[in-house]
């Protein structure tokens, strides 16, 4: 678990902190361009923290399938909710997701990143395999990117699996725990999300 937790924040950051422009539609090149640009942006000392946060939000909205991620993390409970409740959840999840990313912004910009391959799992999904190269302060980290390719012209990131640990699955189990402890009352999850967004 040594390297695993170690990479959590870094991976999440490079996923989202990139400049705002369209990336290549080939999943492998898409990830390469996105991450290299993220590292460049993060290491740019001329950009203020507020501007970085703004860029993170913009790019996350453009390149991460936040709605699908939200639905995935909600699990089977989503099938029991009416449309209005689902819309409220989507809005809250998006705000929560973006805030949790920006709050994790810190000094993770001096790492060398390499895409080492890609494997098409189905028509819908391609797994892009990559690694953060070992440095004096950071062991090598293997990162897999689950890229949604149903629309081949616009790939979207749905999950990150670092050293075998899925961020989406972790989030899903966290939400499931909250729901299970509260008789699947979605309002309790809403209030926890709202509390996080407010603070």
């Amino acid at each position: 678990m040594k390297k695993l937790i170690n990479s959590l924040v870094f991976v999440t950051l490079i996923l989202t902190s990139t400049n705002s422009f369209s990336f290549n539609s080939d999943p492998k090149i898409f990830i390469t361009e996105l991450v290299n640009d993220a590292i460049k942006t993060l290491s740019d000392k001329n950009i203020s923290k507020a501007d970085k946060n703004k860029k993170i939000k913009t790019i996350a909205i453009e390149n991460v399938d936040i709605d699908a991620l939200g639905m995935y993390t909600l699990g089977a409970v989503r099938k029991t909710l009416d449309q209005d409740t689902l819309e409220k959840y989507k809005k809250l999840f998006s705000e929560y997701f973006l805030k949790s990313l920006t709050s994790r912004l810190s000094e993770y910009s001096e790492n060398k990143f390499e895409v080492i391959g890609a494997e098409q799992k189905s028509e819908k999904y391609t797994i892009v395999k990559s690694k953060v190269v070992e440095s004096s302060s950071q062991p090598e980290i293997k990162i897999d990117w689950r890229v949604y390719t149903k629309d081949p012209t616009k790939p979207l990131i749905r999950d990150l699996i670092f050293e075998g640990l899925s961020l989406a699955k972790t989030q899903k189990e966290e939400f499931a725990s909250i729901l299970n402890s509260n008789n699947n009352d979605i309002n309790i999850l809403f209030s926890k999300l709202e509390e996080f967004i407010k603070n």
Partner: protein
Amino acid sequence: MNFKKTIIIISASIFFLSTGLKAETEKECFEKISRGIFKFNQGFDRAILKPIAKGFNKLPDPIKNGTGNFTSNIGTLLTVPNHILQGQWKLAAESSASFLINTTVGVLGFANPAKKMGLKNQQEDIGQTLGAYGFGGGCYFVMPVLGPTTVRDSIGMIADTFIDPFAQVTIREKELLSISGSEIDYFSVKGATVIDFRAENMKNIDSIEKNSLDTYATFKSLYLQNTEKKISNTFSSQDGDDWDELSK
């Protein structure tokens, strides 16, 4: 420990693990108590472990790296028999070579020349070996100070002390190749391992605690996913995911 006690432990282990065979490891043994212990552990971390780890992080890099290498090298002694028990002969040979090279050329393991030679040294224990044999984790719970575990892994942790040569020469006070030690040696190395881990993950654990809606569930998920990954010895994406459920 006498023979009778050993038999009782083994019998109890087989019973508990059999009940966990193919069972979902996500099930909790006693969640309320575990959550209480988890809170206690967080307090212990804030009051004792984190401050020590912060101090450790201020030490020069060669000391920090040397400590990590040293504890990892001693951990190899437990890894080798577990590779053998899992029939992983090549990995057992690589781990053995890694231990010999690091202990000699690497000055008692403080340096890690084996890594530069491309020798793999992944950590294995009895919990993973039992998992590789097909035993399920059984239910999940949290132990005071020691943290997250499952029935299988906690039994494995006790069993580790019977096959780990380092545990044999320290807490079991046996002599191997004229080498002997004491309980203090054993717990010092285990303590150093924990501090090294905590120091290396300072920012990341802070971030998890800050950004989680349910920190207990987050650590549980990470622990269980990590255990599964170690048992299957895979470092790539999970195929058995449930993303396809989204379109239904």
